[in-house]
């Protein structure tokens, strides 16, 4: 059988790619890299596969995802590798391949067409303007290189739109707050490769956006508001989803809306000429890319192992996994806490950097200038609360309680090789939490390229490895201190625990509070008496006080919107199978639009 034989070969291939990328990134061998980057070799090879330092850091992460995803995600990961490190046309085509490879069968029709259109637009934009892909040759002023007068203005208008369209399906951005199969796809390992490609595209945007202050600032604030709304929509999707992979997909959509927000902050920083804040933005974006990739790879590995043991991970079929598979549950809790933002872990460091960056926005104006930023912060706070509630709902329904179905009750810890791989993933997530500076040392050349500085590596000492990079040059956060404090205090509490003999506590059957005894065909008790997945949503609706009349108006507005949409498409609805034919027309139409834009821009 060829299938089991392919997988070790694939893994070996991705391992070689990782080692090669690491060797190229670390400041040991700068010579050959510079020669390749400036096109010293065959120019055709450069057009095809052309890694500069920014692409190399993303390539390292894509190789990590490829290593973990095995055969199922091989196509998406290879396409992602070319999308990240290829020349201008190759990368756009490979990006379109990634979008197609990530398509979910149950999603609504034509879901990725906007992304493919965006990739086509990007390829046209990149290949005209001397583009973003080649590194800036030394001796040329980067600002003059990036701006080109009138062409720079129109590129400044169109570039964020193109990148937004291209990364819309990659980063799972969506305005729909529903949690069903049409709105939300089950998260797989290949989606993390799409996340790395999306982050890489936003980093490129920040690197090569032309230097026009007013336009840059407007786009920055627009991206900020947009990302806040998308974060809220993703958190709502995570709250109402009904199985674990879809809840994780909603949480992932929240994490993936953050690069858009940080890029918006970077555009504002560049417009207002704040070099400290720009450096903090670039560091935050790099750390977000790496930490998002590592934590989500670890989480998905755990969920794959859980699915093998406990069957389809529908929330109302599971329960009591903390008792049935304790080790996997502990690892899953650590991963979820890292996503949710518990203090020493990486989610908290990113939230800290984000809040500091908000504080670093220019406050020179009056109160009227602060109100939009305060509104954005309130929306982010609401979204963060909904996200935490979705996490607690996942833990409370799946991990706590009693099993709900016999299949869910048959779960147990997987064998040691599989468990070992999950432990390695979670340990890597903890390492990235404790040593955030290490990734920045690896990726410093890419950071220098984005921030348009000539010399990237400022003097890095051992203490900088442990510190989260300061977003405004003043404040410092060292996660190791928090970890050490928690360990010391935990040790003291553990001594008290041991002395009191709490481990010898006897376990009794739960008191049924006077209810009649459970029939014998329900050995774990009646599943309906437990807190279910809908209780949290219903309580939130009750407590947050959604007024009764508002639901009626919302439904009327939605009905009107859908009716308008139907009338607009009315001529096409006479043709049977209209959406299918539309989808295949999308690429030629996209190419036509891109050619028109090309003529207009040049």
């Amino acid at each position: 059988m060829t299938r089991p034989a392919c997988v070790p070969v694939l893994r070996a291939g991705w391992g070689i790619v990782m080692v090669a990328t690491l060797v190229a990134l670390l400041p040991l061998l700068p010579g050959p890299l510079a020669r390749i980057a400036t096109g010293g070799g065959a120019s055709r090879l450069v057009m095809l596969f052309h890694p500069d330092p920014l692409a190399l850091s993303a390539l390292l992460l894509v190789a990590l995802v490829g290593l973990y995803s095995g055969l199922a995600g091989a196509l998406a990961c290879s396409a992602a590798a070319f999308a990240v490190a290829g020349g201008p046309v190759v990368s756009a085509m490979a990006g379109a391949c990634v979008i197609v490879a990530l398509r979910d069968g149950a999603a609504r029709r034509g879901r990725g067409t906007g992304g493919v259109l965006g990739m086509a637009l990007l390829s046209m934009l990149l290949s005209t303007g001397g583009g973003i892909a080649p590194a800036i040759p030394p001796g040329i002023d980067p600002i003059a290189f990036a701006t080109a007068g009138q062409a720079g203005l129109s590129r400044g208008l169109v570039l964020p739109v193109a990148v937004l369209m291209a990364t819309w399906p990659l980063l799972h951005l969506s305005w729909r707050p529903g949690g069903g199969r049409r709105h939300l796809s089950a998260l797989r390992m290949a989606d993390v490769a799409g996340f790395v490609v999306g982050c890489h595209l936003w980093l490129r945007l920040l690197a090569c956006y032309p230097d026009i202050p007013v336009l840059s600032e407007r786009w920055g604030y627009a991206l900020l508001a947009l990302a806040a709304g998308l974060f809220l929509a993703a958190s709502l999707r995570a709250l109402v989803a009904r199985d674990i992979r879809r809840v994780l997909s909603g949480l992932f959509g929240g994490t993936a809306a953050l690069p858009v927000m940080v890029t918006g902050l970077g555009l504002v920083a560049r417009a207002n000429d704040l070099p400290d804040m720009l450096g903090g933005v670039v560091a935050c974006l790099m750390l977000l890319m790496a930490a998002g990739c590592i934590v989500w790879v670890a989480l998905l590995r755990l969920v794959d192992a859980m699915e093998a043991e406990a069957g389809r991970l529908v929330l109302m079929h599971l329960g009591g996994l903390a008792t049935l598979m304790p080790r996997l549950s502990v690892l899953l809790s650590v991963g979820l806490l890292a996503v949710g933002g518990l203090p020493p872990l990486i989610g908290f460091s990113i939230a800290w950097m984000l809040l500091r960056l908000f504080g670093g926005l220019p406050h020179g104006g009056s109160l009227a200038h602060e109100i939009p930023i305060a509104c954005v912060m309130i929306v982010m706070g609401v979204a963060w609360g909904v996200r935490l509630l979705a996490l607690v709902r996942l833990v409370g329904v799946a991990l706590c309680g009693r099993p709900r179905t016999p299949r869910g009750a048959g779960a147990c810890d997987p064998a040691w090789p599989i468990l070992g791989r999950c432990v390695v993933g979670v340990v890597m997530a903890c390492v990235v939490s404790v040593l955030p500076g290490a990734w920045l040392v690896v990726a410093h050349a890419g950071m220098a390229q984005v921030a348009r500085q000539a010399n990237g590596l400022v003097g890095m000492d051992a203490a900088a490895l442990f510190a989260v990079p300061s977003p405004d040059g003043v404040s410092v956060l060292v996660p190791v201190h928090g970890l050490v404090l928690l360990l010391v205090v935990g040790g003291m509490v553990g001594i008290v625990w041991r002395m009191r003999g709490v481990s010898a506590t006897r376990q009794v059957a739960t008191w049924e509070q006077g209810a009649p005894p459970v029939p014998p065909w329900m050995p774990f008790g009646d599943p309906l008496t437990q807190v279910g997945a809908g209780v949290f949503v219903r309580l939130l609706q009750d407590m947050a006080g959604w007024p009764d009349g508002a639901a009626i108006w919302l439904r009327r507005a939605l009905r009107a919107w859908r009716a308008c949409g139907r009338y607009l498409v009315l001529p096409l609805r006479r043709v049977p199978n209209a959406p299918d034919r539309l989808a295949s027309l999308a690429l030629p139409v996209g190419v036509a639009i891109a050619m028109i834009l090309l003529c207009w821009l040049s």
Partner: protein
Amino acid sequence: MGALAAGMQGLLLSGMHLVLMMVMAPVCARVIAWCRQGLAGGGGPVAPLLRWRMIARIWGRSGMRAASGAGVTALAPWVALSMVLAAVLLVPSFSLGMMGEDGSDLLMVSGLLFAATALLHVVGLASGQGREGRMAAMLLVGMMLLVPALVMAVAVPWMATPGTTIAGLVRFMRMTQDSAGIRGPLALAGGAFILVGVDRVAAGGGRAFNVMMDNLAGPDRAVMLFARDLVTLAWITLGGDLLWPDAIVIPDTTGSPRLFVGMMAAIALWGVRTLGLCGVVACLRTFVMASGQVARLRAGLALLCGCLAIVLLFAGREFG
């Protein structure tokens, strides 16, 4: 000599602070309950050690926990207690100069306290019972409504003062000449923190919290009660630090006798401030939040405090 003496002083101050907070936590909970009884018309002696005696009695019993979800119930109260103790070590109460002062980041302290409270409520979901689970879900959703208010309350001191730590904030307020424009917003942020700490079951005998612990007995139950009191006191202390940062002593010389007298005075000041805030909390619980829809009202009030703080901070800058 200087560094060693400073280290020893820091260790001593941290130890005193920790012992003070741990001893005073159930006392403050009892004071809040007594104030509420008095305001609601009932009488009775203060009996400040009543809650301590109850906790000690429960600690002395033999332990028992439900068989389903035993893993979560065994660990969660103790992990929550260690998180609260770590947060309490970071929040200054009567003086600065404690160990780990540079790590007393405002967001980290808020995050630790919030996570500890969430973990305490997750214990109710562990055994899979209906009533306990619904009480736990209600308390958890009520907590999540507070997150936007917390974000604003942390952002306001960050925008008003340079730096992110509580110790840095206190030092800045002591050293700056013109602090009139910052005291108002900081006080409002402190008010938001105190509103976050006004638990629906803030003072002893909260019905929902007791229902949540129906299947626990012994040391686990005692640790849950104690951790809840400590969390309330930590929020009150954090709010008090922002309301009145001048009450905290900054020890700049080591080992002088005037310092000892100063410390005693600072501890007395802290005691008075905390008891006053306990009275304020009791008034809030009795008059403002007496109705059923407490969670929504609390979240709305805290968010209003945060927004008013932002308005005051930037409106002041516009005119001066």
